[in-house]
């Protein structure tokens, strides 16, 4: 158990490339922190610096309050799960899990090793496979063996490097909950690298979003989702992604490509003298106007739009609405799309409607959206003009309380089951 503190960590490769540009991050004891970002954002490099497989160019790394910059990986007492699991192919599952124990010669008796491996195998339901070789295991089983190796190490922290990216979708969901359960149960500090925003949102107590080696925002998943600091975080978090449209301020209203929104005093103050901004609206903040009327809800902005394609998913109905963007913001949005590993195909709105909506492709559909949930970004810097630091902090504090309570509950459960 240990806290990990990163202070102004910089990674510069010999060829001069700056992979990590001064990242500072406090990871509390027992916390589950996600490093997330599109490919090439420096998240894996950062993780490898924490574990000691990459040298730290500048800055300081502390584990449990001690500077470890110069320590070899084996002296940092960390356990890591690699993307392709890095199982030893010549050893059985048992020996793979026992490997870290056998390295510490004389510290454990054969009986202790047996007990520890069996405990880990039980936790991960690997008892039946202990005598098999990794080559004969399925992807999910290999993944669990790699986790078993991390458990027996009794490390100060677990590090995961995209551990689920080689699994198919169904297994990924199962393993995700498995990792979450294990982390809560053991209460071990965990740093988890992924490019998948779903994993980031579901697993993390806090999520650190990286872009080109710069830390963008560190916050609870909910604070990230509702209060992103800038265009990049807003676009990265959420699936389907947030819609970005140009917004032109004219008099008392903001003109969007499909509707006009009345300006509130607060919004007018935040806009300053800007006349053109980027407006972000999440797909689920749109709705079928007919559904809204049925529910008897008032307020919001109704509008008509030509629906291009619809996708019915059972729980939702996604409708795609093409729109013309403005050349002034097109460049910025294309750049954002590139940063997010997008293809930059066409400008379209994605709206998530109730699954019983009657909207079909080709319709000139009556839609509706909630302007109170709308985010406004500066077209030059990409900063979120509607960012509310106090609200974001309040969400984070609540999240921290929830986390501690959850660990307490897990401990109580553990104690109850071990007594029984």
């Amino acid at each position: 158990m240990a806290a990990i503190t990163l202070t102004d960590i910089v990674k510069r490769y010999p060829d001069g490339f700056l992979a990590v540009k001064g990242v500072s991050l406090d990871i509390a004891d027992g916390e589950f922190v996600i490093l997330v970002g599109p490919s090439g954002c420096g998240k894996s490099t950062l993780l490898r610096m924490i574990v000691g497989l990459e040298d730290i160019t500048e800055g300081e790394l502390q584990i449990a309050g001690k500077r470890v910059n110069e320590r070899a990986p084996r002296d940092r007492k960390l356990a890591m799960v690699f993307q392709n699991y890095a199982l030893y192919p010549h050893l059985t599952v048992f020996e793979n899990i026992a490997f870290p124990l056998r390295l510490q010669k004389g510290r454990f008796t054969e009986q202790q090793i047996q007990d520890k491996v069996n405990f880990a195998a039980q936790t991960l339901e690997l008892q039946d496979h202990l005598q098999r070789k990794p080559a004969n295991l399925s992807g999910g089983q290999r993944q669990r063996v790699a986790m078993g190796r991390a458990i027996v190490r009794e490390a100060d922290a677990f590090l995961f490097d995209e551990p689920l990216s080689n699994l198919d979708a169904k297994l990924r969901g199962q393993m995700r909950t498995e990792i979450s359960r294990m982390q809560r149960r053991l209460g071990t500090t965990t740093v988890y690298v992924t490019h998948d925003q779903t994993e980031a949102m579901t697993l993390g107590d806090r999520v650190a979003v990286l872009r080109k080696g710069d830390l963008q925002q560190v916050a609870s998943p909910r604070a990230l989702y509702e209060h992103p600091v800038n265009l990049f975080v807003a676009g990265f978090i959420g699936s389907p992604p947030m819609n970005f449209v140009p917004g032109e301020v004219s008099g008392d209203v903001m003109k969007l490509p499909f509707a006009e929104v009345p300006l509130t005093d607060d919004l007018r103050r935040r806009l300053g003298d800007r006349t053109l901004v980027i407006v972000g609206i999440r797909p689920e903040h749109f709705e079928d106007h007919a559904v809204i009327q049925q529910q008897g809800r008032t307020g919001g902005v109704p509008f008509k739009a030509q629906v291009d394609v619809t996708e019915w998913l059972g729980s939702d109905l996604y409708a795609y609405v093409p729109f013309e963007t403005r050349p002034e913001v097109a460049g910025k949005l294309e750049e954002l799309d590139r940063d997010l590993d997008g293809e930059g195909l066409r400008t379209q709105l994605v709206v998530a409607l109730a699954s019983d909506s009657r909207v079909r492709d080709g319709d000139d559909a009556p839609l509706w959206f909630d302007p109170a949930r709308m985010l406004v970004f500066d077209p030059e810097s990409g900063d979120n003009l509607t960012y509310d630091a106090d609200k974001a902090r309040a969400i984070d504090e609540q999240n921290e309380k929830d986390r501690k309570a959850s660990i307490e509950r897990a401990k109580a459960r553990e104690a109850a089951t071990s007594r029984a």
Partner: protein
Amino acid sequence: MRGMSTRLKIGWVVIVIVVFTYTLFPVASIFATSFKLPGELNLGTFLPVHWTWDNYTQILGPDGSARDLFVPSLRNSIGISLIATAIAVVLATLAAYAIARLDFRGKRLILTTALGVSIFPVISIVTPLFNLWRQIGLYDTWLGLIIPYLSLTLPISIWTLAAFFRQIPWELEQAAQVDGATTWQAFRKAIVPLAAPGVFTTALIAFFIAWNDFVYGISLTSTSRARPVPAALAFFTGASQFEEPTGAISAAAVIVTIPVVILVLLFQRQIVSGLTQGAVKG
């Protein structure tokens, strides 16, 4: 062979028979000849009319006429080939490790030089070597053969090992380090077991190259001090000047083939077991 049509199956069987006959007939012929009486060599039969151990006693027996020629040369061949193989494998392992793992200037140069050395015709350097070796006292010594053998075995060993090492998942080494291993432990416990099959294969190839050499063996030796078997065979004589030493040569050929066959069988187990373990890919 499942899923193949009958015609395809028959075709394969025919091809296999042809290939086996082509490759194994000379071996069988030598084997048969080695049991023939000297006087019956030219009868034209494939199998000996009278089976005899005469040829073997001639080269191995206490009173054998070719014993003093053959036994020391067998010792020389085994000793020189083993030493040359051991040195080549150790050096090539280190070199290939560096080539596969590190990025350094002149890496391509080393590989191309190694390739250049290995395609250089042996016969063109043997004369200068002969003169040089006589001057510095390496002529007709074990070391005098081991050094040129290294020039044959090292390049091929470096190439095969470098290719093999490139396929090893080096992440395992890092995983072992995180698991608490020192750099040396990580290498020994995670990498060596995976690299071993490749090293065995390379050792096998290097040994055969040294074992089969004739040009260096005959040019750089003059007595049984260092003369290897392939060279010694050329010095066999018949019981009289009217007799061909074919029987004795065949017997010697069978004897020198035995270690090769044993080695192949022995190492192949290692290689196959190593390959079937296979690296775990995600």
